[in-house]
């Protein structure tokens, strides 16, 4: 297949279109992503929803429901704010960065998700099948990235106004850029994964080489500055009118740093699972992972007897990450990634439980 890349006229076209569309937000309608991609993103968002509910219960107990409801209503309305940019244009903010900074990413995930679900079901804004994808980019990635960046810039101890504003600007800008990049990635993998026999892309038509610049140029130029400006404007107001909201949140909890590191790891893990099928684009077998059959295909006349004997000793339940019953190698690849990750996490969790129990018993005995 011919390598597709952005030509000059396309850069101009997407930039102009993107600036016009910057007023419509980042909501993915149905039709751009395959139902399989949508289902996988639902599965990826699920653990973050569970974590968000747990965070809420830990923080506010019985007040959980009204707090979530009001924060979701706030997220809904903040998406309507038109922020003026230097140069005369205006753009919509997502508001997920400020939600992540002030509420904490767990609670922000729930609030922004509820707002997105109501937008899809009641206002027809964003697809119904794409709810998982929209929640993943705007309700999960944005608050977590914004919170991590803000905390890194503000630093430990009592936060200072200037640092907080700089942190808010960078967090707003980068978090939306990450959300846009994830969306571009989801669009860009569609033609590699879903085409008909004639090679027609069945969903979003552009490969990564086109989708990423087409999404990123207008977002970096318009939407990201809007998010940064709104985040700074709200932080500036809160510093002058309600500083307690910022100082109480910014003070790290005793286990906050460790939890933050773990959160980062979970995000990285989720991102890695999404990009797993990219491996299908690479031809051949990974270097050094040849089986006896592949070695003979490589032209090696001699197969070591031990390799031949031991190679067939263990039959993997999902050989080559392919589940023939699914009739689709991409779904198999994703499912394999989720099953593999899940099993790994389960084993490590069981081991850690055993170790913790053992050390607690030893402490008690001591």
């Amino acid at each position: 297949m011919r390598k597709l890349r952005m030509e000059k006229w396309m850069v101009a076209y997407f930039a102009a279109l993107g600036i016009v569309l910057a007023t419509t937000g980042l909501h993915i309608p149905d039709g751009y992503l395959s139902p399989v991609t949508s289902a996988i993103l639902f599965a990826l968002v699920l653990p973050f929803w569970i974590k968000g509910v747990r965070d809420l219960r830990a923080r506010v107990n019985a007040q959980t429901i009204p707090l979530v409801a009001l924060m979701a209503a706030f997220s809904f309305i903040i998406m309507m704010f038109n922020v003026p940019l230097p140069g005369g244009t205006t753009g919509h903010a997502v508001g997920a960065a400020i939600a992540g900074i002030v509420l904490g990413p767990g609670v922000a995930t729930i609030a922004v998700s509820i707002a997105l679900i109501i937008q899809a079901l009641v206002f027809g804004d964003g697809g119904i099948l794409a709810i998982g994808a929209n929640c993943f980019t705007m309700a999960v990635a944005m608050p977590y990235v914004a919170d991590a960046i803000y905390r890194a810039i503000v630093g430990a101890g009592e936060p200072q106004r200037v640092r907080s504003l700089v942190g808010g600007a960078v967090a707003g800008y980068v978090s939306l850029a990450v959300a846009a990049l994830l969306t571009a990635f989801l669009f860009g993998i569609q033609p590699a994964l879903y085409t008909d026999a004639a090679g027609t892309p069945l969903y979003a038509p552009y490969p990564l080489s086109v989708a990423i610049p087409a999404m990123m140029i207008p977002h970096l130029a318009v939407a990201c500055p809007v998010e940064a400006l709104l985040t700074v404007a709200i932080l500036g107001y809160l510093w002058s009118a309600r500083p307690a909201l910022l100082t109480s949140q910014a003070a790290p909890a005793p286990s906050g740093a460790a939890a933050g590191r773990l959160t980062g790891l979970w995000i990285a893990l989720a991102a890695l699972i999404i990009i797993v099928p990219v491996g299908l684009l690479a031809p051949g077998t990974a270097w050094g992972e040849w089986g006896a059959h592949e070695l003979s295909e490589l032209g090696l006349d001699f197969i070591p007897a031990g390799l031949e004997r031991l190679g067939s000793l263990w039959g993997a339940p999902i050989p080559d990450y392919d589940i023939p019953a699914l009739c689709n190698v991409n779904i198999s690849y994703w499912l394999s990634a989720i099953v593999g990750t899940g099993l790994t996490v389960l084993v490590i969790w069981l081991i850690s439980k055993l170790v913790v129990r053992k050390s607690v018993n030893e402490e008690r005995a001591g």
Partner: protein
Amino acid sequence: MKNALAKTARTVSASLAFSLAAETTARQGGLFQRLDARTKLLSVLALVLTANLVHQPVVLVFLYAAILPLAAASRIRVRTLARFWLGIPLVAALIGVPALFITPGPTLYRLTGGLAISATGLRSVTLLYLRVGTSASSAILLALTTRWHDLLHALARLGMPDVLLLALGMTYRYIYTLLELTNDMLTARLSRSVGPLSASKQRQVQGALAGTLLARSLDMSGEVYLAMRSRGFSGRARTLQRGRLQWLDLVWGVGLLVGCTLALWMGR
């Protein structure tokens, strides 16, 4: 400098107007209004899923066209439908324009300047347009013909946890409170403005509005909680179980199932 504050006020008002219009449409006696909310929710999911699984443009054209009589039978205003049936897919088509030229495949039409429309490119953009149009207008059939509490009831009967239902219900209720609050704050600020505001001043005002909204939301959540406790809320959500599936639901459900199965079979 365009007045971003006025633009925000217009967006907020349009949102209020949309939901009021939706409530009015939902009370009319059209086809979709007579169906149980569960039937509608599952029907729309089936329609959207079918539209996204079908690979033949001809079959998608039928699905896309089928929305029109359904919308007419459900008394949906032409102007509202046009936004979702034509507007949203047109944006998808505009996004897809370069794909017409760069998607590898047999040349269909050669333009001046070395550009050529490929058959695969045209097919791909057509698929995108039809999928997006069918999905968006199916979703709006649900949104415009179903009152929110009926939708919540349907979600409850379909197994959504009570706590989430309560959060969704309260969110919806407070969206209007906050929308009104935002509208009042914007009107109050705009009525005190003489001449155009600079961009930086507008950003400052937007920040103050959004910040006030955030602080008020947090305060209000505490007040709402106290009010709930005073009425005896114990932390357990309860929903009113009502509504029964009618013959019309059964007939419609079977018809839709047959239609979607046929579309999936023909559109492989």
